[in-house]
């Protein structure tokens, strides 16, 4: 009985591979365990403290670029969240800008206008072949050459541009503004239903409705209407030059802008290439067929070409989003206070918890990347052939 079991394990392909796999996983786990133990031992021997208790001690340094309040008395854990939000902010803004720019350039590269086409070509070749770090530093240096704070350049006397950033009025929401906000949300929801309704009507009757215009009007005018009904519940706090700096209002820092330009202009070049190849991949016959149906050329692009091209574009687009997000860690080069800069750098310097901090930072990037991949995959599924034609 026993021998037959052993026999079975050794000679049966399936159970044998199962055994081998379990062993390998087990050994791998043991390996990780040994490394962890040895590391802990070495750290102790060298008098380096370890553990995660440092997260709850105060950070001791200030962060100026932040989305949530932070003072030097807050903990390293909070510094982590400040950095995380800054990383997410640059990633989201960067991806949006890169996508818009990338689509534009991709389409221009296929245009029949020689000049535009070649300008786009030069742009793509230049930005793709220069390291993104240099580009970030380049834009930042240009921003540092903007007028000094005392000579800040006024735009409509509301915004002020200087090498310490773009200062703009900040909104102060007074009582009743929430109603305006809710009216906007309800308007948006309403337009979604309206669009469905008009579409189905179009399918039944063949009549076309200017859906886009109707909906835009609804979305724009509803909140305006409520704004006046509620008695203009919005004021602005204007920045004024006082002492060393502008007081009041809000500011977009050159460190953020440098990152935004660097990352999105670089990534847009890659996106434009995937857009271009996506459009080319749609067979010529599609365009010719729609032309012979008498469709306007802007309709051909929007209704025929782009939806089919998207199927090819989305997967590489995802990896561009991932690249941009990971490249945002280059913020340290110009002092953009992202996750690696503050928590991954200054907190590490102060607490010496290199392993713990790097682990946290790596897991964070991994999670962000996985979330991006996941949502892009879901979107990708939604644009694929549904097969119910």
């Amino acid at each position, binding site marked *: 009985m026993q021998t037959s079991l052993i026999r079975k394990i050794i000679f049966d392909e399936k159970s*044998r*591979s199962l055994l*081998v796999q379990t*062993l*390998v996983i087990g*050994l791998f786990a*043991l*390996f990780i365990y*040994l*490394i962890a133990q*040895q590391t802990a031992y070495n*750290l102790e*021997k*060298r*008098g*380096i*403290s370890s553990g995660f208790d440092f997260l709850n001690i105060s950070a*001791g*340094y*200030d*962060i*100026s670029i932040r989305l949530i309040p932070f*003072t*030097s*008395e807050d903990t390293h854990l909070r510094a982590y969240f400040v950095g995380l939000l800054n990383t997410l902010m640059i990633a989201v803004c960067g991806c949006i800008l890169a996508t818009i720019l990338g689509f534009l350039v991709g389409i221009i590269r296929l245009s029949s206008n020689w000049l535009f086409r070649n300008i786009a070509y030069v742009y793509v070749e230049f930005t793709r072949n220069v390291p993104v770090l240099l580009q970030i530093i380049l834009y930042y240096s240009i921003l*540092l*050459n903007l007028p*000094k*704070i005392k000579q800040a350049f006024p735009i409509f006397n509301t915004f002020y541009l200087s*090498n*310490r950033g773009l200062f703009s009025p900040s909104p102060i929401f007074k009582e009743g503004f929430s109603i305006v906000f809710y009216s906007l949300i309800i308007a948006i929801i309403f337009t979604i239903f309206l669009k469905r309704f008009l579409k189905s009507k179009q399918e039944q009757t063949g009549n076309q409705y200017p859906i886009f215009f109707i909906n835009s009007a609804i979305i724009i005018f509803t909140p305006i209407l409520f704004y006046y009904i509620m008695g203009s519940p919005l004021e602005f706090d204007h920045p004024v030059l*006082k*002492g*060393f*700096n502008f*007081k009041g209002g809000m500011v977009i820092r*050159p460190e953020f802008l440098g990152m935004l330009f660097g990352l999105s202009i670089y990534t847009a070049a890659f996106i434009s290439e995937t857009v271009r190849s996506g459009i080319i991949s749609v067979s010529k016959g599609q365009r010719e067929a729609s032309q012979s149906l008498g469709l306007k050329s802007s309709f051909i692009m929007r209704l025929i070409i782009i939806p089919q091209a998207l199927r090819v574009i989305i997967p590489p687009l995802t990896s561009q989003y991932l690249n941009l997000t990971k490249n945002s860690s280059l913020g*340290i*080069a110009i*002092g953009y*206070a992202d996750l690696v*800069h503050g928590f991954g*750098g*200054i907190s*590490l*310097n*102060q*607490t*010496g918890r*290199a392993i713990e901090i790097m682990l946290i930072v790596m897991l964070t990037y991994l999670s962000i990347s996985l979330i991006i991949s996941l949502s892009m995959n879901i979107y990708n599924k939604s644009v694929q052939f549904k097969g119910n034609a």
Partner: protein
Amino acid sequence: MTKIKSLFISLLLTLGVSTAIAGSHGSTHDLVKDRGKLMCGSNTGLAGFGAPNDAGVWEGIDVDVCRAVAAAVFGDASKVEYVPTTSKVRFTVLQSGEIDMLSRNTTWTLSRDVDLGLEFVGVNYYDGQGFMVSKDLGVSSAMELDGASVCIQVGTTTEMNLADFFKANGMSYESVPVETNSEADAAYLAGRCDIYTTDASGLYASRAGYPDPSAHVVLPEIISKEPLGPAVRHGDSEWADIVRWSLNAMIIGEELGINSGNVDEMKGSNNPEVLRLLGVDAGYGAMLGLSDDWAYNILSQVGNYSESFEKHIGPNTPINIQRGLNALYKDGGILYAPPFR
């Protein structure tokens, strides 16, 4: 069968690797001797303290500590490789074993000494944190800095003192974080920040390199104690002793009036401490695991503390720093080395 074989191989590999990781760390002194040169963590570039000169040779009073250790270990002060480190990564670089010692205007603090697993072996410059502003701002005191933008190097004590100082005085500021001294200079000169704050010595050194040094003032307030000194990894006391006494030898050299010019003459001195220091009276080198002429080599090749100070940052250099606190205890300063006996 091949699968099983490969399994065994991977098992062996696993054990092999983990024992390799477990392997003990040899003493730094042996490591340095075997390598034939000292790896010394330096600044990325701070004139007078640690920076390559026009010929690419590293110079400065922090660099001289590295050179003194190389002279003590090898009898040759030039056997050093300098590894530029930013303030942020310097401790990680030391802990990872990439360098044997750190000599880079690093402030000795409790948490660094105890929690980060470092060992500070002495102080080669007593400093304090200052503020530098452009003269045309018309600021005369650090108490007038409310609302200013401040350039600050990340990963420094000065970064934390800055936060404390503004908080304690109920003032606000925008911190403009930079990685290196040269980035700070660039941001400050471009007007990205109104103030540059760091160790006062660093401010003098930076200012000396500006297009018009006289257009900038260092404000009178010194807001912290910054004892700067060399550090090594915790847990290797023999090596710490070598670095500590190399620095002490330079200070004692000044106390005893021994310099690179008269060191040979001094071998004939009748002061017993001079004879012990220069190895004429044998035995002190062996205590450190060095040759008896280790301190002689330091003083003849690097010079004493005063020579190093005057050459790199003293009143006759563009950096123009007075000895002040860094004068010997008998000259009104607090520089003081334990007795050589």
